[in-house]
């Protein structure tokens, strides 16, 4: 079985990370922001796994597992705050978050 070369995996990871980052910068709906952040985290996971296979060491995979767990906790906290915000003003767009002045 021919294996996928390292730089293919890294390129895919970089592309995913950029997609997520651009999503965070351009989108205004907080739920989509949360999804973009998940894409960034999964890009990191992919990169870590690629390096773990390349290095023949397992620490990268361990870190990836922790990232998955933390991403779940982060989503829970984020959604809870979005819910609290929606209850207060029936809106989840960040461009309307202007109570605290710049």
């Amino acid at each position, binding site marked *: 079985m021919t294996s996928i070369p390292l730089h293919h995996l890294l390129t895919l*990871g970089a592309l995913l*990370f950029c997609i*997520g*980052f651009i999503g*965070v910068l351009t989108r205004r709906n*907080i739920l989509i*922001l949360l999804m973009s*952040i998940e894409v*960034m*985290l999964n*890009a*990191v996971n992919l*990169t*870590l796994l*690629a*390096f*773990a296979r*390349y*290095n023949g*060491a397992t*620490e*990268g995979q*361990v*870190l990836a597992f*922790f*990232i998955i767990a*933390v991403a779940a*906790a*982060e989503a829970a*906290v*984020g959604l*809870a*705050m*979005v819910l*609290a*915000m929606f209850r*207060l*003003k029936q809106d989840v767009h*960040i461009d309307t*978050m202007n*109570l*605290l002045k*710049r």
Partner: protein
Amino acid sequence: MLHDIALLSPMIILLFGALFTLVVDPFLPTATPRRFWGPFGALISGAAVLATAALWVSGNHEMQTPAFAAHLSASRLSLFFTALTAVCALLTHLSSPAFMDEQDHGFGEFYALLHFAAFGMAVMVAAESLITLFIGLEIMSLSVYVLAAFKRTSLASVEAGLKYFIMGSVASAMLLYGMAFLYGIAGGTTYVEIQRALVVPKPGLDLWLGLAVVLTMGAFLFKVAAVPFHMWAPDAYEGAPTPVAGFMSAGVKAAAFGALLKVLYAALAGGAIDSLHLSMPKMLATFAVVTMTVGNIAALRQTNAKRILGFSAIAHAGYLLLGCVAWVPDGGLGDHYHVAGAAVPFYLVGYALASLAVFAALSVVGKGGQELTGQAQLAGLGRRYPLAGAVLTLGLLSLAGVPPTLGFFGKLELLHEVLRAGDQYVPHAVLLVLNSVVAAYYYLRITVWVYMKPEGKVEREYIRDRSLTWSMSLAALAILCVGILPSRLMRMAAFAGGAVRPQVARAHLDHQLEVAGLKPPVVKAAATEAVLPR
């Protein structure tokens, strides 16, 4: 294994506090006021401080060895910062019960989250590998996001938490991406492995290493609220409940700088970093100067005390960042044992105590769900509640760096260290002094509100509470007493600062042995006691 657990006792105590609060609280009747969790939390945090002190006193070579397969350590640096963050948690536990009850949000979870945040900070500063650093950082951050948004019926609080959360999550993703590249380059996640991999320049990997450094440092700049990632800070401080804002400015900053020092000098140091095209010290020093200037100038035209302190936190991040950079002159290896490295830990103690005192004193105006801390709310505080007025003034003077407070000696030592680091930092030092002068204006302006502004007709009510009084008095006493007799703390800070350097030297030595064809001694991450200033 038993030895490992002894080394981690401060963290275990904090985690026990969190879990105990979380498990017992639901079984209490709903009507029971939850403010007793505050003093309980203070006891737990105090126990963690004592455990840290015991580890510090019993410190020998064996005790300095890392625990859990070189992923955590109890070096003097870790212990110093663990104690500092536990003290921050202690004072916050004392100052928050009355305030949170007045705001109708005195739930048990609040105190559990404070414990979790302190636990995360302790893990973060004790981390010796990227994995533990990340876990500690996330435990701390997730708890603090929730704490900032804790008053969930207030739009300001939720907005503050959400802004902090979104920016923080992006910063975490950046940090992780940087970590992934570091792992790829080093083939391991512990700081020692990374350091070993970076001893010699790696021409082919410059691009990747540069990317890793930029991403990692960017994330740290966010956590300490430095330019260009500072805009969340004033919003988060203004919207968060006042005692939480104090905890954020003191504890989070202390933990972030503790971890940053370790990453800078125990992991990202060596020939490979020095040979990069972008000079990391120069870049960070520039960011530091811009940070302090932006923070101070933006603070000048604010009208809310909490928001002013948010910008002041940015300015202090700038001073501290400069201290971190100037710690070791460029090219960090070898013969720099004479640099004590005491300034940053020492300054952080002064800064943390002062901001805890200031925010505790500001929280007295939160009677009946009141959230604002402007001139109208603070006018007359000095006459009607002398203790709060005095503590507020003392804390502000310490932040401004006026003798005989702790803040003065912190700034003095910081300036001394920056100048000692080399001639290239003289312009930075001059800007630091100028910035301190500008900063005095807005600190004194709050004092003027408190003592000299007309009070208005309505007799204002303040929160008067025993544990809040304790919190204010303890912080103020510490600022004054340590400010008058700073030498003992200074020596401890020098021990803490000295703990990183032997590690750097050891990686260098190992490499030389390897080049000479000798087998390097098997040492996994060791921050041992070495040559220390007496």
